[in-house]
């Protein structure tokens, strides 16, 4: 299998799906002529032309609404947000139109749309451009929310998202576009939505991590292994629908859980996962579920403070040692 970056894996997924299905088209700010602010759409304008790869004005609410209308009319739009920070402007279309249309039309209009782009913390772009808002979208019934952490998952999940008949929020991590990994080159390689992946098996503690926190959790697991603590790292990959079964099965084996995320702690996805573990695996818990989240504060611009606001290896190791009563 070739080793490629997440950026290249996403590009392959887009290319393969544009080629496979003529109803698929791509639009967003700078996606065509400039080939994407993060070069995810490189070469696509040249290959598929300006009817299927479309540059939009800086009007997130407008082109998100255009996308929902196109989906109602039978197309399969892929809408790129330059970052998910700007999707905040489009939330009325995403939440009030895309998420609810199937329900409110009595099943007459499905909305097979993908809203994708980078999210989470970047490097020194300060509070408004460095935030993880997956819990907003995961909150709403009608939306699916996907967050890949490896090139293979990024490709397989994006292809599944484009083929899915429901609106999908697909959040790539801004810091991770250059991460490399092996990716199958089979054009029908898919990763199903709603299925978690055990990134590393272990027996003493379960670390549930997504997106940016997956590689950090795996490094923490390496370090903890040397201290005699065996960690199982689970990446839900899809936030909604959440594969709680895989998590619960793991907790039944390990009896202790750390949930890690870079987003704010209050009302976050960690809170949801913790609550479900308590509901479904209470009798198997040997310690309270421990959350590791980003700071409960706007992202600082200063480098030293930014480093403190994003969870790191030390914080995950400390949390694991706490729930395993190791200190």
């Amino acid at each position, binding site marked *: 299998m070739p080793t490629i970056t997440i950026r290249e894996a996403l590009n392959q997924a887009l290319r393969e799906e544009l080629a496979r299905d003529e109803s698929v088209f791509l639009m967003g700010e700078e996606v065509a002529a400039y080939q994407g602010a993060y070069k995810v759409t490189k070469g696509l304008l040249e290959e598929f032309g300006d009817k299927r790869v479309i540059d939009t004005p800086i009007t997130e609410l407008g082109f998100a609404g255009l996308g929902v209308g196109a989906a109602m009319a039978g197309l399969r739009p892929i809408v790129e947000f330059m970052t998910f920070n700007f999707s905040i402007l489009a939330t009325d279309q995403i939440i009030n139109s895309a998420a609810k249309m199937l329900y409110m039309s009595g099943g007459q209009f499905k909305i097979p749309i993908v809203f994708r782009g980078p999210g989470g913390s970047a490097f020194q772009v300060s509070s408004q451009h460095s935030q993880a808002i997956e819990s907003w979208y995961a909150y709403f019934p009608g939306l699916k929310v996907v967050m890949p952490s490896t090139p293979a998952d990024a490709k397989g999940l994006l292809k599944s998202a484009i083929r899915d008949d429901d609106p999908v929020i697909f959040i790539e991590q801004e810091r991770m576009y250059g991460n490399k990994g092996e990716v199958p080159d089979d054009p029908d390689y898919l990763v199903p939505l709603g299925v978690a992946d055990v990134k590393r098996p272990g027996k003493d503690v379960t670390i549930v991590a997504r997106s940016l926190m997956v590689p950090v959790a795996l490094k923490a697991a390496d370090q903890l292994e040397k201290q005699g603590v065996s960690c199982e790292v689970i990446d839900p990959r899809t936030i909604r629908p959440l594969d709680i079964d895989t998590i619960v099965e793991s907790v039944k084996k390990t*009896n202790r859980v750390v949930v890690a995320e870079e987003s704010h702690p209050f009302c976050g996805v960690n809170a949801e996962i913790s609550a479900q573990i308590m509901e479904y695996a*209470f*009798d*198997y*818990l*040997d*310690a309270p579920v421990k959350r590791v989240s980003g700071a409960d504060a706007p992202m600082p611009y200063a480098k030293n403070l930014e480093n403190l606001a994003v969870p790191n290896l030390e914080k995950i190791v400390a949390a694991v040692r706490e729930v395993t*009563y190791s200190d």
Partner: protein
Amino acid sequence: MASKVMMPKLSPTMEEGQIARWLKKEGDTVSMGEPLAEIDTDKATMEMQALTTGVLRKILVHEGESAPLGQLIAIVGEPNEDINALLSEAETAPAPAKPQPAEEPAATQPQQQPEANGNRPAEAAPVPTGRVLVSPLAARMAAEAGLDLRSLQGSGPGGRIVKKDIESAISKSQAPATVQAFPRAVEAKTFQQPAVAAASPYRDELITEIRRTIAKRLVTSIGPVPHFFLTTEIEMDRAAEMRRNINALDPDLKISVNDIIIKVAAVALLQHPAVNASFQDKFIRYYEHADIGVAVAIEDGLITPVIRSADQKSLSQIANEVRELADRARSRKLKPEEYTGASFSISNLGMFGIDEFTAVINPPEAAILAVGAMSPKPVVRDNQVVVRQMMRVTMSCDHRAVDGATGAKFLQTFKKMLENPLYLVV
């Protein structure tokens, strides 16, 4: 900050308490650990201590009124602090039970609002003693293994019992179990320390299958504790004579026949450890010492103060303790640890002229001895009819722990020693 004073749990079986007397009045300063009130529980009148320092701002449950465990009964705080929030909380709680409900017209009842407040006391109930911290997993594992969480020491934060504590307890309890496959060793038993201070150490032996089956079958026949009864008649002349002689040495000793019975029973129990035991569902607990419960009639019931390690105490010690405990039992001043955790009980109705009777076992003890009156009777000795002081005793046994022959052998020893009390000094 103002803090709530809740009705505390002062006896193992207490569900509500009645304020006998407030020892402080509103406006008095109180310091932590100082007695705040006297509370009548189901067993005794107990002192309640202040858990915080401050001024007793408000008494919510007055003398003579009752409140369930965990209900707010008073507020302690700073002299000028605003306590309205706590007061309004108290108003929504159920009104304290008045002592004279019969005379109160029914029309005043609706203020109790049981619908809205039914669950409050249970919700609040911060019981100061006896709370076991345990992880959900450890609690389940302990239940499956039949382990008593109170006997375990938690290694987690704040003493929380966690998985590894249960695992080590299981591996400990299994080690002796394999030893038990061999014929019973006579010495080198190790005993665990009990939760109640001064109570006898004990060792738990997992019950065998046959014992489990016996237990199950007998319970279906006769209720949770399957009693059977063994009666024997004991010649008491020598015991009575010994008592006379001892009291002649020092009239202050005031040793009673019952004190001698307690001592003999305790010594006999040590020779028959199978009777000095209790059936505990998955194992049988054998005690190192004989802690003898002595039934004492009190005004509105009975209570069994415990003579700890009676096997090791002299007759004069036993006599003094029985007298002192019985006096305090009658004035309802016993502490819970003084009337719980016996390994065997004795009930004596001889002073009421009862010839013989059967007593009901006080669970989880394995047996109780019912002692009748001593009276002169014609008996045959060496083919001659002679008059002797005879006394009939009946032992009720928990058949799950004690079999007929086991109980009979104990009674045989008991009788032999009581008929020849010199055995006590041999």
